[in-house]
């Protein structure tokens, strides 16, 4: 019943502007998709093109409202007694190659993701669990997870469905059930998706989408202005000067300073707190960070389940910071040790200026900070374990993206003792993560809230900075509002043509 309502809503929203036109559009993206492999659709440069456009998933997260996980290729689902999940599939759905969608396709798609014959990146969301898919009948499929996965329906929004015949190795011509099919791909130049006439859902207004790729943000902005493209989902804040076409949106990216608690002086909580007090976060907003960005108190954006509104941003208190440092020094902590601040070139807009400003603010209260910019591979070697032996105290400036609505995609990796990017080890944190991951409903939200407060106020795990804002330039001839998921997914069916 609930699902019927939702379907109606989706249909309704798509059908509402009945007077609207239809036609082709052009979208300019910063980075070319080097692959159009459905099982890589969780990577943003691929997902933006094919996710839910070409390749659909069983479920879908509502990023425009607060309706949580919604049906897509599965009409409904329920948890059975033994903790496994049963999905009832939509009928009458056809792949773009003409074959009919059924449970075998779902099982193959899932097995393909989990196969060791390829490097599907969606697999990473299923780390640390054993899941098996069992076809019950052509329209029903069971997923059994060990340990039990309360968020399995959410996880299924990350598994793109391909036909059963798809080989395990990477493919270059994705076949899916989505409203669009790949029409033309000229590597290095453009990708064209065309609307399918036999799509199971409502007919979208965009009949054909051409994707172009330009790495320079000002060129992307210029292209929409010059009418060479209709939509640039991400442009630079500096180019976003025209309120009629340029929209800001809270994207799912969070900028933070990952602290390595294993090395003096960052092993001392007073020092970490001093570091947080030394940063004048508010001064960045409207200057180096666009208006609309939100000061972060957690590594997940406020739209996430369990985000804790009671946790307050550290105030800007240089005097307090100096005092804490003095205390730590008196207690024998070597606060004078030079700390290396590692940042990645072109990681996010204004990264150099922001890092220079952070450096100077930290130096202001008495930290010794060396700023070092590195390219992506080297950044990764600082950010992820195993950390180098004999390293000095290190702060890594990084950006994390969680648009999935649940902190579990973040917390384990960033804070658990075993997490690859975790800079510390705290039994209480480990315990909270474990319990929250297994919990459901309000209990789950409560535990996440608790963890977020503990990390921020007691452990002072890291230096959280901003939830970033992105800017889109939208041609006046189309109707599009960017969402928090625009970075990773861009559903053409949500675009209207005026």
């Amino acid at each position, binding site marked *: 019943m609930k699902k019927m309502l939702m379907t109606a809503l989706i249909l309704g929203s798509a059908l509402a502007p009945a007077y609207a036109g239809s036609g082709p559009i052009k979208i300019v993206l910063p980075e070319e998709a080097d692959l159009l492999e459905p099982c890589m659709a*969780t990577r943003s440069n691929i997902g933006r093109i094919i996710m839910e456009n070409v390749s659909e998933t069983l479920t879908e997260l509502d990023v425009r409202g607060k309706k949580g996980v919604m049906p897509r290729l599965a009409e409904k689902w329920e948890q059975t007694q033994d903790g496994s999940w049963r999905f009832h599939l939509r009928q009458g759905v056809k792949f773009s190659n003409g074959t009919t969608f059924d449970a075998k396709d779902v099982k193959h798609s899932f097995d393909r993701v989990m196969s060791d014959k390829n490097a599907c990146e969606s697999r990473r969301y299923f780390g640390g669990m054993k899941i098996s898919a069992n076809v019950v009948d052509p329209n029903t499929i069971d997923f059994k997870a060990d340990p039990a996965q309360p968020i399995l329906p959410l996880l299924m929004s990350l598994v793109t469905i391909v036909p059963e015949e798809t080989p395990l190795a990477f493919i270059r011509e994705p076949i899916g059930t989505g409203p669009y099919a790949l029409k033309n791909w000229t590597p*290095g130049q453009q990708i064209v998706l065309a609307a399918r006439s036999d799509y199971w859902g409502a007919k979208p207004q965009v009949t054909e989408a051409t994707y172009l790729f330009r790495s320079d943000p000002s060129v992307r902005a210029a292209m929409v202005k010059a009418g060479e493209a209709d939509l640039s989902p991400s442009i630079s804040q500096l180019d976003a000067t025209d309120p009629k076409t340029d929209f800001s949106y809270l994207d799912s990216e969070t900028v933070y300073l990952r602290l390595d608690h294993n090395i003096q002086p960052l092993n001392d909580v007073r020092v970490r707190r001093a570091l947080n007090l030394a940063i004048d976060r508010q001064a960045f907003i409207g200057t180096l960070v666009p208006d609309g960005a939100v000061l972060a108190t957690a590594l997940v954006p406020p739209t996430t389940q369990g985000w804790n509104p009671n946790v307050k941003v550290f105030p800007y208190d240089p005097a307090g910071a100096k005092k804490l440092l003095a205390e730590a020094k008196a207690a024998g902590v070597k606060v004078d040790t030079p700390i290396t601040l590692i940042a990645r070139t072109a990681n996010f807009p204004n990264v150099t200026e922001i890092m220079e400003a952070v450096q100077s603010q930290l130096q202001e209260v008495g930290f010794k900070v060396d700023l070092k910019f590195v390219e992506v591979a080297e950044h990764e070697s600082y950010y992820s374990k195993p950390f180098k032996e004999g390293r000095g105290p290190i702060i890594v400036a990084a950006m994390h993206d969680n648009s999935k609505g649940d902190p579990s995609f973040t917390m384990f990796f960033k804070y658990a003792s075993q997490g690859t990017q975790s800079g510390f080890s705290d039994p209480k944190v480990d315990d909270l993560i474990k319990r929250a991951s297994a919990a459901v409903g309000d209990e789950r939200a409560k535990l996440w809230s608790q963890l977020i407060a503990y990390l921020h106020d007691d452990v002072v795990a890291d230096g959280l900075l901003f939830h970033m804002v992105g800017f889109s330039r939208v041609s006046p001839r189309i109707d599009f509002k960017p969402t928090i998921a625009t970075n990773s997914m861009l559903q053409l069916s949500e675009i209207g043509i005026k």
Partner: protein
Amino acid sequence: MLSFIRKRSVASLISLVGLLVLVFFLSRLTGDPAALFLPVEASAEMKQQFRELHGLNDPLMVQFGRYVGDVVTGDLGESLRKARPALGVVTEAFVWTLWLAVITMSLVTAAAIVVGSLAAFRSGGFFDRLSSIISLVGASVPDFWLAIVAIVVFSVNLAWLPTSGTGSILHWILPIAVLFVRPFGIIVQVVRGSMIGALSSAYVKTARAKGVKAGPIIFIHALRNAMLPVITVIGDQAASLLNGAVVVETIFGFPGVGKLMIDSILQRDFNVVLAAILVTALAIFLMNLLIDLAYALLDPRIRH
């Protein structure tokens, strides 16, 4: 001539092999492609498995042996990122770069010869001073700066030309114009210098004594003699275009090999890097051969 080409080919082959060996080992010192292909959250097992899949776990010498074996059979391996044969990826991109370089260098050569010759003909005159200042400034402007200003002025403000991309002839104008500036500045100076020498030579005196007009004296008698050093510089400049039009290709979204190479380097897509180097090095070798042929064509004294 044939034996000369053979000799050159052998020498270049040695250089090429040396180059590939060097790049093979050095590039593998620069980090793990698995960490870049997979997201930071990917587990250690996934990374391990990725490396397994692409044979990155084997000792370096084993990987090298395998690579050499493949190359001998004409297989340059597959791109890690694109799941396509590396050679295909590279040749596709290279065609664009080649056209860009050929068209740009033809225009540069023609323009530089005319401007340089006229500057030399009245050396020290107003035109000479003007052209040398312009060419000097041209040679010292950063190309990415020029590219963006050109887009803002000609595409956005004046709306005369498309901002970027490929498609029509119009799309080629801005990239070529931006690439034009630096080699033009350099070659004009070389043409000028060389032409001043040629114009003061004895055979030009003879031509004047024969009553030959100024036009043929400059462009027939002096120019052909002055072209030898010019051709060397044209070759150098063309080589750097084949190798490194990266910035312009990046800004104009031009699908050339320069951008492909830098992307592959940053992503540690070794097979593509190696294939790209192989293809560009071969192209540069062929171009050098052409230049030697041009020498022989221009100057009969070199012909044997």
